[in-house]
């Protein structure tokens, strides 16, 4: 065989290999791959909903799913994820554990060529994609609603845990709005974590004892928003302040539906995020590339006027995000 024939044969072989590889890569999501879904704190209601939906979506594709709850321990979470990598899992889905604290794990996943998809965990180098919400904007929505409802003046209490990057971003949104309202007096408190639910209850109760004219309370996330609403309900203040928070978990919907002090939540499509994470894993293992590593999903403004019926969830494609789009607005 002459040189030209050798080259032609080699080219044909390479082309065949490439095509076979591409075909295999395209089909990999249709094979029973192994996926690990984990969180540093899976018991948090919002996080749990994301894990549930991601698990269901992955199983519906015929994938093998293993879940892990770090129970608040980030180091244990990282160790477990490294174990998943060593055990040969095909993809990793991180649900709301700060990616900033998982640099070593992400590097290991990259070395092993395993997609690392996350939800609500922040964008850092090395991840495949993070699906979340624009937390700064969400903080703005919640704070703007407060400013509008109290006519731009009065006393507002804000409680948050700014150690978590997503919550710090919401905090930034809150401050961006409040800096424009000089007649709103803001008192800020940092929550104790763990023990955030009880701490919220105590702090709100204490504050209301000494500040009878508080008009509104901004809470960093629904888990503590619900506790704040309970504290307001049980307080002795005559004019009970309203509470706003973010996430959109079932307890928040219940309280909003019941007309409790929890007046609104900026709700995320947490179940949709779980589904989107699984779709992203499928795309990644099939060899598709992601033009952006941070994907934002649209939230909804859930008030008594828009809260879904018990057992149902908002339609995030059509739901209102601005008060003017609410059903009872003019």
């Amino acid at each position, binding site marked *: 065989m002459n040189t030209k024939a050798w080259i032609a044969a080699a080219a044909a072989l390479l082309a065949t290999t490439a095509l076979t590889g591409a075909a295999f890569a395209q089909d990999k999501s249709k094979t029973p791959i192994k996926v690990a879904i984990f969180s540093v704190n*899976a*018991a948090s209601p919002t996080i749990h909903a994301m894990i549930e939906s991601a698990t269901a979506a992955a199983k519906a594709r015929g994938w093998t799913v293993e879940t892990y709850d770090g129970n608040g321990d980030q180091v244990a979470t990282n160790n477990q994820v490294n174990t998943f990598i060593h055990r040969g899992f095909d993809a990793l889905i991180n649900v709301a554990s700060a990616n900033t604290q998982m640099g070593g794990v992400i590097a290991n996943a990259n070395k092993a060529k395993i997609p690392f998809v996350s939800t609500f965990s922040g964008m850092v180098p090395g991840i495949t994609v993070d699906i979340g919400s624009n937390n700064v904007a969400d903080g703005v929505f919640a704070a703007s609603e407060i400013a509008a409802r109290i006519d731009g003046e009065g006393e507002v209490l804000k409680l948050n845990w700014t150690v978590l990057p997503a919550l710090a971003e919401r905090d930034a949104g809150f401050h961006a709005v409040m800096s424009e309202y000089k007649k709103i007096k803001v*008192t800020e408190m940092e929550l104790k974590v763990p023990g955030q639910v009880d701490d919220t209850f105590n702090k709100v109760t*204490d504050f209301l004892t000494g500040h009878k004219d508080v008009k509104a309370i901004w809470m960093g996330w629904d888990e503590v928003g619900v506790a704040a609403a309970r504290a307001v309900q049980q307080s002795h203040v005559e004019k009970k302040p309203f509470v706003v928070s973010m996430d959109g978990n*079932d307890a928040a919907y219940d309280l909003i539906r019941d007309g409790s002090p929890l007046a609104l939540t900026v709700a995320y499509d947490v179940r949709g995020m779980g589904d989107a994470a699984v779709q992203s894993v499928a795309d990644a293992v099939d060899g598709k590339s992601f033009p952006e590593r941070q994907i934002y999903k649209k939230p909804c403004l859930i008030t008594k006027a828009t809260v879904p019926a018990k057992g149902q969830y908002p339609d995030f494609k059509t739901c209102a995000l601005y008060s003017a789009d609410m059903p009872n607005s003019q």
Partner: protein
Amino acid sequence: MTADVGARRVAARPRIDLTVFLARYGTLLSLVALLIVFSIARPDVFPTVDNLLNIMNQISILGTMAFGLTVCLVMGLFDLSIAAMATLGGYIATFLLVQYPDTISVPVAVAIALGVAAAIGVMNGLIVSYLGISAFIATLATGSIITGAVLGISDSKTIITGIPDAFMAIGQGAIILGVANPILIMLGVGLVLWLMLEHTQLGRHLYAIGGNAEASRLSGIAVKRYAPFALAVCAVCAGLGGLMSAAVLGAGRPQGVGDGYLLNAFAAVFIGASSLRPGKFHILGTMIGVLLIGVINNGLSVMGVPTYWQYIVQGLLLIAALFSAGVLTMRRR
């Protein structure tokens, strides 16, 4: 003659040892001082009846758990499973009420939750007494098992809907003179355990074993039988604390309920052991310790002091309290 009698009177008058006085009453004085300082700082808020009841309400879960822990520590047993036990207590009760609303009433759910806690406490005690494993390690292990079991049973899912109002009334109601139920529960538990420890042979035996287990055994006390009892009491109190938390917040959380109380409960009991009867764990002292923690947290919160100061002040106070108790112990030697 008159001068002579006067001199003898002076000599007969007991001298006040300032170190002993401070060691015994220092914690109590600190509590009074804090009450005064916060009252001066926020006279319109802190010393009001509303706020004092608020403080009592806020310490009720911690107090209930700390009282139980006191019984263990009297015997020299460290129970590290109380955090998990609190989570378990609240979760079991809400789980039963939501899963079986037609068959299980609130009293039954409460009884089952506390019964399970008691059974685990007894098991802890049997491990300690008959397997010779230290309570510190045994309860650490049991706590881990409970945490895992609750997470597994619950699938890490918080129970937030369907909890009956009758259950939430345990935490949110006020059946006597407008005093919140959790306060009444805490005081009731404290009274029962105080009577048990201070006025029964059972209590005296617990103190005797805590003082010197071998001497107690030689004097005829069946030492091994007491650990299951003490750890069961501790477990029931922790479970009750978690149950109260679930009732206050209207949620059965499968994780982290007791975590915020574990160290504070130990802090309260140790602060208590530095007051009135330095070096001895006792219910009245624990009440002082719990009050101290509650007043610090409430006072600083009412004054708008940042959260991190609450951690710092509480830590400093614990050191001060233990130091004062240590001084007295050293002097006794």
